[in-house]
């Protein structure tokens, strides 16, 4: 009797492990429209209303915990912020001087003239779910195809770019954050600086990496980065030019790397996003 139980248990265990391995390999090898992806999207769509309801119901509790956490953080950051205020005062004076000389003004005016976000519609959405792992920086939102959201639409907050829509269903969508390994965006340093590709550093939600592809100018700490878009008229850029991304922290050049890598702190707080805007319409 006991041996039979053991055999049954082993068989079930082996069956489930094999099922997992088959799922992983099938999921990798099939296309986005394959049966596994379709079934996965179906389950995701069915869960979406429940996630939304749970997210709304639990918001007060979440806000309370976040408030406590932020209060502790704020105490620790007080000294740091005082020092930063002094630095920023100095920067402000410098920036005002530069503005009067028309250097920055030209760049900002150029962004405005390109009508960066003019053709886009803003669809406001609530974050209803999120991955617990830094390996998958993915979240779900409560707006989908019915609201005009499409795959690869840029997603922003008031602070700047946070990611792109990775998949969409009728009433919900999944967003791959900038800190997800699958998301990359062409960026340029504000003020005529070099252009590069910003990608994630897995495990660190406060760090992005800019790899330069054009221009060898040194990127100084504090330099601001915005989306570069694509200047070729035959190509459509996923991200319109001019969306703020983050601020350069430090640059490194490893022994095996030919070009410098610049570490970027994103403007948006990637670990605590409650609401987002999806830029729909593709600028058309």
């Amino acid at each position: 009797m006991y041996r039979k139980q053991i055999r049954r248990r082993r068989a079930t265990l082996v069956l489930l492990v094999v099922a997992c391995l088959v799922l992983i390999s099938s999921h990798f090898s099939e296309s986005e429209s394959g049966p596994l992806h379709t079934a996965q999207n179906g389950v995701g769509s069915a869960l979406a209303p429940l996630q939304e309801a749970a997210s709304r119901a639990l918001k007060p509790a979440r806000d309370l915990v976040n408030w406590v956490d932020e209060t502790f953080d704020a105490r620790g950051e007080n000294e740091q912020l005082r020092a930063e205020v002094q630095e920023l005062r100095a920067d402000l004076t410098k920036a005002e001087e530069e503005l009067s000389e028309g250097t920055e003004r030209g760049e900002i005016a150029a962004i405005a003239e390109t009508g960066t976000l003019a053709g886009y519609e803003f669809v406001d959405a609530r974050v209803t779910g999120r991955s617990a792992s830094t390996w998958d920086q993915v979240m779900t939102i409560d707006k989908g195809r019915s609201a005009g959201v499409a795959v690869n639409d840029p997603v922003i907050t008031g602070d700047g770019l946070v990611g792109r829509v990775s998949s969409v269903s009728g009433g919900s969508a999944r967003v791959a954050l900038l800190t997800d390994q699958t998301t990359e965006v062409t960026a340029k340093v504000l003020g005529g600086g070099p252009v590069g590709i910003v990608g994630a550093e897995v495990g660190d939600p406060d760090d992005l990496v800019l790899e330069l592809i054009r221009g060898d100018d040194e990127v100084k700490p504090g330099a601001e980065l915005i989306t570069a878009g694509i200047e070729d008229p035959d190509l459509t850029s996923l991200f319109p030019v001019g969306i703020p991304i983050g601020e350069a922290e430090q640059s490194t050049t490893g022994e095996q790397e030919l070009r410098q890598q610049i570490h970027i702190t994103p403007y948006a707080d990637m670990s605590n996003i409650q609401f987002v805007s999806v830029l729909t319409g593709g600028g058309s």
Partner: protein
Amino acid sequence: MIFTLRIRLTVAAIVFVSVLLQLSFFSQMPLLGSVANLVPVVIVALGLLGGPLPGVIAAFFAGLLLDSALGTTLGVSSLALMSAGYLAGRWREGYDIVSSLVPPLLTGLLTAVSAAAYAAMQLMLGVDAPVSLLVLREIVVQGLLGVLLAIPVFPLIRRLLRPALVDDPLARRARASRTVLGVTS
């Protein structure tokens, strides 16, 4: 554990609610540079109370639900959670829960094992970006938060599944402590 239809439905509901809470609540509250992960805590509790098979089956379906909701590679979360569920069940078979500290500590350890297994699988499947050493912080922090979460979660799940438990070691010890020289006080 005696698996009647009612108990099966209860276990399914526990797994479903834990996944929903994880997605909508715990994952959206950053703590100590990571987030608390309720799902492995629940899986370990089911493994400790029901044995390896219930632990592994619950882990498989919880992982499928998580991967389906987030659009991540199907099967990865299931495998990572199954490691925690199986080990918790094996612990139950080999050792008694001699102290109320054992479930939280074991849960913390197995939550960290589950996070490490997930990280290992991601590395094996290939990563298209540089990897920070902070992924180690996530494993440690999720383990520590798992200890804290297990303090209310384990007794709650034991209470929900009490009708099905053949032998609850903590309840047996409590009964024994109330008995003096064979006379129940």
